């Protein structure tokens, strides 16, 4: 992995889920290069890109492994809450 992609992964992991535009801004880098790197990292399974609608506009949100872990934890928590409520 190139150092630039490694830096991008670090920014993704420490930040809340960001759009590619916000990620480029946060990383202080060119949008087009960041877009390409995000696609490559997503293809390698190191990031996920999730479509989301914000203020009526479709944006691609970038999530890293930490976001995915938190999402699984939230799902587990919600599942347990449902079971508790049913009992």
């Amino acid at each position: 992995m190139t150092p630039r992609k490694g830096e991008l992964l670090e920014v993704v992991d420490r930040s809340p889920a960001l759009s590619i535009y916000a990620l480029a801004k946060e990383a202080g880098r060119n949008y087009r290069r960041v877009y390409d790197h995000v696609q490559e990292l997503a293809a390698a399974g190191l990031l996920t890109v999730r479509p989301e609608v914000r203020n009526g506009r479709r944006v691609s949100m970038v999530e890293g492994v930490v976001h995915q872990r938190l999402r699984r934890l939230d799902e587990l928590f919600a599942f347990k809450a449902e079971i508790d409520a049913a009992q």
Partner: protein
Amino acid sequence: MQLSEAARRLLEFLDPEGVLIGGICAAIYGVERFTRGVDIAADLDPETVVRRLREAGVEAVVRRSAEPGDLTWVVHGEAGGVEFQVLPAAEVGLAPGAFAMKAGLRVADRDGFITSKCIAGGQQDLHDVAALCLLDPKIEPRAREVAAAHGALAKLESWLHDRRLRQRYAPPPGEG
């Protein structure tokens, strides 16, 4: 409210002195298990914690203890249907500034997290430490050192040899 959202809000109310510990922190570092609520360590006195939470509309109470081995105080409450507790950072082994930003959340850094777990010393705590060691064997010597310093080495050793934990977290041979 989602667990991570509750954690995010509580951290905002206790910013910048609060850091996540406990099950959410474990999950962030890669340990998958259920957790019942949000645990935060704060470098604040309990009155300030309660005041800040109440100003944000979150009711909380302080429980104090003078028993040897107990934390001197714990703030308990519930935010958006999620239980939480705030613990004294120094007593759970967290030094000021020993944090990392993960997914926009301020969490104990891995070394601080391991220390907090070894001080807590329960089976679940040492399970988490062992899982972290299996995920990243480089940290095992440091984890053993911390566990030994807090009388938790036997429990850590036991978890490190647990077959199911090894199957779940240790990298397959050739990938480690």
